[in-house]
């Protein structure tokens, strides 16, 4: 069963108040007030001096469990909201693999599910490893995959989702195994809705109406597949889109808001695909998750389509 062996997160120490971005992003005073009052967004992480490579390297080098185990890493997956992040022939992912001693691994990106690509990458990594281990001779070391998330907020579209969220920079690195004992993946549910293509904007109003009910349905589907009742979840690790969305999700689901980890939203903003991992680290660092606790990670990716995803884990 797919498992998370270790998780490391890097969030730049520098924080920029949302109002300081208003001029560049063309936000009105009303839009800034809305972000403050209802979306709960105050600051976002930015590191103008750090490249995408730097962000990913910070996260990966924080992964103590990787040291000495590089030879076991068969796959390196970079899950991204942005399909294109560097001009050819620059390839930050390949550069990073070489720097980490992972030049032998098969490295590729996972995109097109926007900010839900991170959960997809965990699922893909686990399935690739499961296929490999099925034919593996006994006694060989168990293979691993490294799932990276991280982006630069390098264009207006990468800084802002209008009236919804402001993106923060950061990165995560997660070591995945096919049969580990820690943070075992019990279920993954995903719904891709191609009709919600933000490029045309034709169905934006419908997306607003169907956003929370669709995410709730995917969450319920993941719980059913995991054989877990909503009440039995110790915690939900949300995507950090904004506070009001999750306050209303809690009402819709009938789940206590206190058990949704929303604390990183005001300070870090929506860190693309890395939200789940940042929230996981916060939960572990605070001792919120105990062995045996079940928790759910949720993500929505909006862009070329809308992807709603949920994963249930056992810690």
């Amino acid at each position, binding site marked *: 069963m797919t498992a998370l062996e270790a998780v490391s997160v890097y969030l730049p120490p520098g924080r920029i108040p949302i109002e300081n971005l208003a001029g560049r992003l063309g936000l009105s005073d*009303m839009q800034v*007030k*809305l972000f403050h*009052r*209802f979306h709960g967004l105050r600051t976002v992480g930015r590191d103008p001096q750090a490249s995408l490579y730097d962000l990913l390297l910070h996260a990966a080098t924080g992964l103590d469990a990787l040291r000495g185990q590089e030879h076991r890493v068969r796959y390196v997956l970079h899950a991204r909201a942005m399909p294109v992040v560097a001009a050819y022939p620059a390839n930050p992912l390949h550069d990073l693999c070489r720097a980490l001693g992972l030049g032998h691994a098969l490295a590729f990106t996972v995109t097109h599910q926007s900010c839900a690509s991170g959960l997809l990458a965990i699922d893909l990594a686990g399935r690739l490893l499961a296929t490999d281990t099925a034919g593996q001779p006994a006694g060989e070391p168990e293979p691993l995959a490294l799932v990276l998330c991280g982006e630069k907020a390098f264009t207006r579209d990468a800084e802002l989702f209008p*009236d*919804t969220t402001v993106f923060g920079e950061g990165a995560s690195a997660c070591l995945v195994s096919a049969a580990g004992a820690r943070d075992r993946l019990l279920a993954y549910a995903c719904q891709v809705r191609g009709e919600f293509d933000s490029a045309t904007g034709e169905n934006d*109003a419908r997306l*607003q*109406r169907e956003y929370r009910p669709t995410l709730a349905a995917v969450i319920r589907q993941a719980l059913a597949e995991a054989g877990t009742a909503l009440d039995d979840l110790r915690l939900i690790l949300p995507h950090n889109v904004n506070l*009001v969305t999750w*306050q*209303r999700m*809690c*009402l*819709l689901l009938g789940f206590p*808001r206190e058990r949704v980890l929303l604390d990183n939203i005001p300070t870090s903003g929506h860190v693309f695909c890395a939200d789940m991992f940042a929230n996981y680290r916060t939960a572990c660092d605070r001792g919120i998750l105990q062995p045996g606790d079940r928790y759910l990670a949720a993500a929505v990716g909006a862009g070329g389509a809308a992807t709603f995803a949920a994963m249930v884990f056992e810690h």
Partner: protein
Amino acid sequence: MTTQEAGPDSDFRQQVVDTMTAVLARLLDHPEPITENMRLMEELGLSSTLGLELLLELEDQLEILIDVEQLGPDQMGTVGDMATFVAGHSRPA
């Protein structure tokens, strides 16, 4: 401020209705008078985003803080439904 359980103060609720209808007319550029029975989404086309802008305007103009955590779809049926909610789930700013 009142609570929903006790029943919102009717004068205050009317104040909310009056403010809401004026703000909605401006936000939605609605040419006809807006009344309590009009459905916010289906009839007036209020989006989630404009709904939040409406709440913020109500907070500013009425000098209140609205408990948005309790605001669900049931309270966003008609203009009157939402006014009842706001009157019953707000406190002085």
